[in-house]
Each structure stands twice: as C-alpha cells, then as structure tokens.
C-alpha cells in the first residue's frame, strides 16, 4: 500500500496492518491509537478491575503485534483486535475467579469503573443504582457478561459481537437475554417503589436505552472514537 505519498487519504486499519507486517515501525502504533479507548472500555467493563484490564489489553496488543502477519482480513481489523482483547479478558477472568477479592477492594474497584467526573452530575439514587448494577454484573458468568458488555453497554451489534466472540448470533442473543434475566432480581429492589415499576417506562420500547451509541458505530472501523487518542 503506497501510503507514503498520499497524505490526503487516511490509511485504513488494514493498510496500516499491512504496513506493520512489512516493517513500518509506526503503523501498529497508529492502529493502537485508533482503537485503544474502545478496547480499554471493553476490557475494563468485562474484568471490572483496572490493573487486570490493563494487563489484558497489553497482552492482547502485544500478541496482535506479533500475529499481525496471520491476519487474513476475513473480519475488520477492529473486530480482530476486539476478539483478541476479549479472549485475553476471558482468560484473565477465569483465572481471577479463583482468587476473588475482599468486599473492600470490590468497592474500590467500583469507584474505578464509575469515572467520578462523569457520574458527578447524577442524582445519588441513580449512582446507587449504577453501582448496584455493576456489582450484579460481576456475578454473571464471564460469557454472559462479555456479551452484555459488548451489546448493551458498548453498543456493538449482535452480528459484530458474534464475530468478536466467535459464536453464532443466536448464542450472543441468548447470552444477553440470560444475563439480563439474571440481573433483574439483583437490581429491581433499588427502584424507588418495588411495585410501581412504571410500565410506561418500558412500554413497547424494544430498542436499547435512549443513549446507547448507534449499534453500527463500531462497524465503521476507523476512528469512531479511538481516532482522537492522545498524542
């Protein structure tokens, strides 16, 4: 790919990966800059622990760096990176399951997950609800959690999530469905009045919540969010 000359057009992820395989020292770094924020969000939410997430993303990117030559382009580069990252997270989650931490540490980690500056504006009850939801999320089997993180939290389409997780779309749907069903009893008690679940709020609203990013977003491969990375 002749990118040296055409400054005007931004190279695609695939271009960059090809350059990296050819030995371009900067290409992989650019890919990382484009996608690291989203990979980070997925890892942090899947693992629920900052250091674990950092290790997972680092492991994932280093192995992607090494395995770049084996990328065949059946999927988007971003999907491939997500797959490696999610796998690294699931590996870690399974290992971490054996050494669960104390409730104190748990609280601490929740604080990491709810970035203070973003939750500052929210009413306290809402914050409590968020916290409760995150606690509940941690009790789910990893695979259900990963599916919910990708689909409900990060707004990836079911199809892309299926590709990332390497399972059929039906499996993604059912993991999400089972996951939500498991969360339900864990969070409902937080709602203002147990009985008044305000059917209107649910209504026929089959769609995802109001501010879920457009599901097609991440599919646009490039710089949806990661493009503006630091530096």
């Amino acid at each position: 790919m002749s990118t040296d000359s055409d400054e005007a057009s931004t190279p695609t992820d695939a271009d960059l990966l090809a350059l990296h395989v050819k030995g371009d020292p900067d290409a992989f770094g650019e890919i990382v800059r484009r996608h690291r924020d989203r990979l980070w969000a997925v890892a942090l939410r899947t693992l629920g622990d900052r250091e674990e997430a950092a290790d997972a993303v680092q492991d994932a990117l280093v192995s992607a760096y090494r395995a770049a030559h084996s990328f065949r382009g059946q999927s988007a580069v971003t999907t491939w990176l997500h797959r490696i990252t999610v796998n690294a997270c699931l590996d870690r989650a399974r290992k971490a399951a054996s050494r669960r931490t104390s409730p104190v540490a748990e609280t601490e980690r929740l604080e990491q997950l709810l970035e203070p500056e973003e939750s500052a504006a929210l009413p306290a009850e809402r914050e409590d609800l968020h916290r409760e939801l995150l606690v509940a999320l941690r009790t789910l089997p990893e695979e259900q959690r990963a599916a919910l993180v990708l689909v409900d939290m990060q707004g990836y389409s079911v199809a892309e999530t299926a590709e990332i997780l390497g399972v059929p779309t039906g499996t993604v749907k059912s993991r999400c469905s089972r996951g939500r069903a498991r969360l339900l009893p864990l969070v409902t008690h937080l709602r203002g009045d147990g009985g008044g679940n305000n059917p209107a709020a649910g209504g026929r609203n089959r769609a995802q919540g109001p501010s879920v990013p457009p599901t097609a977003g991440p599919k646009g491969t490039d710089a949806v969010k990661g493009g503006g990375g630091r530096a």
Partner: protein
Amino acid sequence: MTSTTGAGEHPEVSEISDLTDGLLSPSHTADLQDHLAGCALCEDVRASLDEIRGLLGTLPGPTRMPADVAERIDAALAAEALLDAVTSEGEPLVSRETSPLHASVSRETSTDPVLVSRETSTAAAPVSRETSGQASARTAASAPPGRRARGASGPGRQTPGRRTSRSRRWPRVLLGSAAAAAVLSVGGLLIQSGGSGGGVQATRQDSSSSAHGESPSGLTAATLGTDVHKLLATKKAQQTPEIGTRSSPATPLRGEADTAPSCVRQGIGRPEQPLASTRGVYEGKDAFLVVLPHPSDPKSVSAYVVTASCISSSPPAPGKVLLTHSYRRD
C-alpha cells in the same frame, strides 16, 4: 414447543427475556404475548428487563484509556519492536535456555502487582507500573521481561521476510543499543528469576550444586555477612515482584520461592516470609542460610544458618539452628 404459560402459570423471567430478544418460536412468542397482555406482573418484568438494558447502555464508564495504561502499552510495544530488531540480527542474545524460564516467571511477575494493588494499597501498583513503563521507554528494552521472552519463540517471529525487512529499518546505532539493552535485560531476567516464582528453583539448584562460583555454597561464620548482603543485593534487583511475593496470597509457584523447607523455618521459629534464602555447606554440613527481617530493628536483618538434615529426618523435626547473626541492611 408448548409453552409454560398456561392459564395460571407465569413464565420464567428468562423466557420473557428471550421473548424480548426474539429467541422464541412464533407460537411460543404468541402465547407469551397473550399472557403478558393480561398479566401486569409479567408485563412489569418485561419492562424491567428493558430498563436494565437501557441502564447498561447509559452506565457512565471509561471513555479514554488512562494515560499511564496507554504509556505502559506503548512501552511494551516499543520493546517488541526492539526485540524484533535484535532477534532479526541473528538472535544470539536471547538464549534458548533462559526463555522458557522467564516464560514461567512472567505470569507471576505480571500478575503480582495486581494482587498488591488489591490487597494492600492502590498506590503501590500504579507507581510500580509507571516506573517500569518509563524505564522501558528509556532503556529502550525493559518492559516486563517475561513478555518478551515469549516473543522469542512467538508465532510472529516465524516469518523470515518480515524479519529481514524489519531489521533493515533499524539504523546501526540503534541496533547496537538495542543489543546492549537486550543483554542488560537478559541479565535482569536472570536476577529477576532468582527472586520470584519458579525461577528460583532453577537458580537456587544451580547455586547449591555450585554451578555459580560466587554463590555462598561454603558458609562460614566469618564470611556470613558478605553472603547475606550478596543474597539481599540479588533480591533487591527486583522490587516489584518481591512486594508481590510477600504480600499476596501464595500461589503454588510462588509458595516455594524464597521459602526454605518448612522444617528449616520451624527451626528458626519465626512465621515471617524470609527475605531470602539459599542452600550451602556450613562446617561440613548441608545447611540453609535464611535471611529474615530483624525482629526489632528495621534497618537490620537476621541471618540464620540451619541444618538441612531435618528435610529427610523422620519423625519430622525442626531444623537445628547452627548460627544466628544480625547484619545492617545496606
């Protein structure tokens, strides 16, 4: 096929959830919808499930990778790049026999700080991460060593075309310094493995079978101080894993690190984790040199020479302490 939603029965929450996700057969779907239309309770469940989905989508969360994590990853990737350059020069520097060793150690070292951060202080981990990240940026090759070790035999290395083209991109000078850095880091790895995890086993056995001339195989009262300091100096070379070694729950691998046999430790009669230990010969007897923190003076350490014969004694008995002395830490 047939639904559980007969007249009086409520469907499972998971069924309602499946309904929302379109996972049910058309007939089951129709049945459930009929039920929901007439059952406020189940309709409520459905609304709650929707709400959960909405909540998940609106949870505040990370939008940016934190700068320290990004730097760490950049450093790790830079180290990869350098290693690529170095190994492509003919990879004489990362020796075959060392890499499997770090590979086993790397798991440990990379997870240790995590444990520290959870169980002791939050400050500890980020700081140590930070410094190791910066160090690697600066010395150009010392990101977490174990990670690199895997690289030596990683799948990415196999493509000769890639290797040569990559090496051509590195200027000579840089290659030189990369090579130097790699030499340093291999040295670092050996030290590191001497202190953490399974690596200890290898190094220690080495030294007790006197493969290393400088290790204290011959212990005497006169030279004990030197041995202790040497032992501690080796340990000091890797702070982070050591913190992990001491303050985190023992994993099988780590449990054996720095730990003299239990009968030896019983002989000493102190519960703390030894700072360091090694095996040697004292007055013709097989013995362990074990270094512990001084009970009262934080600036000092206590050294114990304990007979190793207790290992094979039956009935089990605590090892006999042959010599005790305190030394200043330096």
